[in-house]
Each structure stands twice: as C-alpha cells, then as structure tokens.
C-alpha cells in the first residue's frame, strides 16, 4: 500500500538520467574555451536549481503543516529538506570541482551562486540539530515547520543579496544577451534539469515510503507481540508518525490491523 507508483517513477528516472548522460557525452558540443570539464555544468547547475526549489518547497510543505496540523506534511517537509541537503552537498562539491578546473581555485568568493549556496547549506544544516534537540514530537514538528518557513523564504532573499554583493564571473545561464547557451546545449540542459528533478522526487518518495513502512511494521509488531516486545523510541530528528495502534481500539483483536481490513 505504500510506495504506489515507485516502480514507474524509478523507471522514468533511470531513463531520464541515461538519456541525459548520453546526450551530455555524445550530443552536446564541447565548450570552446573550457573543453571537456564544462560538461560538469549539466550536473552542477540542475542539482543546484533543484536544491533551491526543494528548499522553497520544504517551506511550503511546512506552512501547510502549520495550517492543517497534519503530521504527513511535516514528514514531507522533513524528507524534502533532508534530500535537498544531500543535493546541496553534491552541488557544492561539483561547483568546487568546476571552479578549480576553470578558474584555478577550489573556492572563489566573487562567485555569488557558490557563496549563497554555502550560506543556504549552513542554514539548513541546522535543521536536523534543531529537530533533535526538541523531544516532544508534536512540538518538534511545529518548531521545525516554523524554521522551515523562515528558511524557505530566506533562500531567494539570500540569493539576491549575495548576487548583488559580488562582481560576477558566473555565467548567467539564460536571458543575458551574450551569455546565453547555444540551442543544442540549452536543450540538453533542460533534459538534465528534468532528470535531476525526477531523481529528487524519486529519492523523496523512497524515503517517505521507507519511513511509513517502518512505522507500520512497528505498529504491527506492537499489536502482535505486545507493547513490551517493541523497544521504546529513542530521540530522533526524524518526524514520528504517531503510534497508529495507540489510537486504534484494543478490543478489535490481535493481528487485525485496521488499515488492512478487507474493503
């Protein structure tokens, strides 16, 4: 019952990633002055764009949680931010590699995208410690949502401020008069963004499904073996989905977990 459509999504992601890498290596033209290393652009930029959009999305999910008090939105917000942090690290690393290859330094301060990316990373890296230091799961969800809303709004503002602060050497991908991409590159780039977005969505779906499955397994074990057989929960930064068995009536009999009742 969990993870519906995961297989289709996995296949689509696999196909999109394969197509992206095939296009990057065999179709996209070599950059005139950076040569082969410019190909990292098709990983770095899509990852960065997906990361930033995901942070904003995490903030929106958190706002929905604050409005509805539905714990599933907290789970979604948590998972989106969690995966976005991983993408953020990948974006930072690929950015550093590209910077080393094309400008000769691992870290370049007059490079607004990289710098604002680092600041955003440092901010969101506090999301998990914040959650971890609050024990009550309901309050943890609420406080984390407040943080996620603020941090989600922070992303575009920070981006604008850092970009304004630096004399840019970063290529603007779209919209500028002479920095625009040739159409072949732009086309591959769009495919790469779609592939990365799919990969992100797939990882989120897997994590949500894994968490839900784990919680259901726990609830079932409690019902079958009694609550003494299941170890109490330790502190965790991950959202707790609540104990379904606690709300379910106990006289309904062992083994007949309400969610599994025949329809």
């Amino acid at each position: 019952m969990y993870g519906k459509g995961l297989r289709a999504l996995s296949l689509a992601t696999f196909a999109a990633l394969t197509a992206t890498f095939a296009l990057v290596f065999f179709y996209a033209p070599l950059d005139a002055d950076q040569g082969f290393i410019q190909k990292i652009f098709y990983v770095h930029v899509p990852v960065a764009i997906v990361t930033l959009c995901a942070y904003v999305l995490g903030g929106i999910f958190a706002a929905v949680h604050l409005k509805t008090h539905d714990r599933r939105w907290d789970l979604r917000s948590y998972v989106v931010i969690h995966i976005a942090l991983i993408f953020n690290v990948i974006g930072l690393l690929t950015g550093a590699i590209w910077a080393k290859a094309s400008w000769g330094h691992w870290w370049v301060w007059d490079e607004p995208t990289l710098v604002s990316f680092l600041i955003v990373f440092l901010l969101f890296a506090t999301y998990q410690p914040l959650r971890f230091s609050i024990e009550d799961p309901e309050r943890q969800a609420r406080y984390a949502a407040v943080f996620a809303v603020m941090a989600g709004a922070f992303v575009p503002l920070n981006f604008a401020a850092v970009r304004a602060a630096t004399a840019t050497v970063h290529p603007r991908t779209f919209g500028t008069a002479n920095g625009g991409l040739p159409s072949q590159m732009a086309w591959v780039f769009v495919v790469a963004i779609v592939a990365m977005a799919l990969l992100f969505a797939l990882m989120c779906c897997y994590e949500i499904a894994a968490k839900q499955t784990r919680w259901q397994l726990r609830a079932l074990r409690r019902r079958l073996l009694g609550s003494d057989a299941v170890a109490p929960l330790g502190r965790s930064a991950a959202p707790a989905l609540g104990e379904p068995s606690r709300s379910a009536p106990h006289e309904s009999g062992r083994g007949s977990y309400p969610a599994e009742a025949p329809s």
Partner: protein
Amino acid sequence: MRPSVALLRKDLLLERRAPEAVPAMLLFTVITFVLFHFGLGRDEVSGQLAAGVLTVTLLFAAILGINRLFVSEQEEGGFDGVLLAPIDRTALFVAKAAGLFLFLSLVEVVAVAAFAILLLAPSPWPALPGLLLTLALLNGALAVVGALVSALAIRTRARDLIVPIVALPLLTPALIAAARLAAPLFAAGGAQALPTKWLAVLALYDLVFGLLAYAVFDFLLED
C-alpha cells in the same frame, strides 16, 4: 498594541532593576574591539575593514542578547501568563523585538563611541547621519530575527547552541548589506554617500522577515 507596550515596559523595568543583557553586550563589544586591535595588528581601521569590524562585533553582541531574551519568560512562567491573558500572542513577539531593538540601540551608543575612539581612523562625525540609518535598519533585522530565533530555541535542549547556529546564517544577508552600507561612511578620505542598493536590500530584509516572523510566531506558543 496596549499589551505589547505593557510587556515591553515589564522587560525594560526588569533590565533596569537587574541589568543583565545590556551590560554584558556592552563589555563584549569593547573587549571585541580590543581583540580586533591585536588580532588584526592595526591601530586604526577604515573603509570596508572598519565596517566589517563594527557590524560583526554588533552581530555577535546581539547573539548574547538573543540568548537571554526569553529566559525570564521560561524560568518564571511568563509564557503561561501570556497564554492565560486574553491578548493576542503576537503581542509578546512585538514587545520582545522592540525590547531587543532598544537594548541594541543603547549598546550601540557606547559601542560606536568606543569604536571611534579605539579603532576608527577617519572622523566619525560626518558619517553619523548615515550610520544612524544603517544601524537602525540593522537593529530592525537583528530584532525581528532574534526574537523569533530566541523563541524557537528557548524550549529546546541545547538553546545556547541552537541560537547562534540558526541566527548567524539567517542574518548573513543583513550583515552583508550593513557592512556594505557602512563601508563608504568609514572611507579613509571622509564619509561618502550611502549606496541606495544596499539600503533597499536591508529595508527589504527587515520588511520580509518582520512580516514572516509576525505571521509564524503564534505557532511557537501553542502549548
């Protein structure tokens, strides 16, 4: 508005009877200037360096105040009092942000004077009007973000650790803007005009985070 004013007066009275945050922040800023003198190995600073020393010092001093902001509420049951009273919960946010703004302004009166005497190379007088505006906007940013982060951290296990790691990245854009605003004021050749771009960025930051914090503060007091 009346509840906010009452809560603010309570905080000011508390600080006057048992001064705690303001003297600590003051001593912190002065000792930091001394440390910068030795750390940088300079007798005088100007331009971007001076702006950076002043704004970073004020930011770190503000962290001290942010750490203490809700301690009395937490320890003496002030949260329950606010929840029991028939008032809007955001009144507490407005009062705390205004209180932090006033504390910071008070600290800055002495801190800027000490900075001008100890470290600043050019004369501070021509820079004063621009500096007032810059510091007022910076205080606004520190006050709204500080009040929210303080309320967020006060009921966590590791509040002294959570406050700086959350507040510092959140305040980075405000620091960038304030440091860029102050740099031409402290220019070696005498104060220059404020760059309007950074004025706009800082004002926008104040506005956006002020409204956001006002909107979400409610949820931090919900139990």
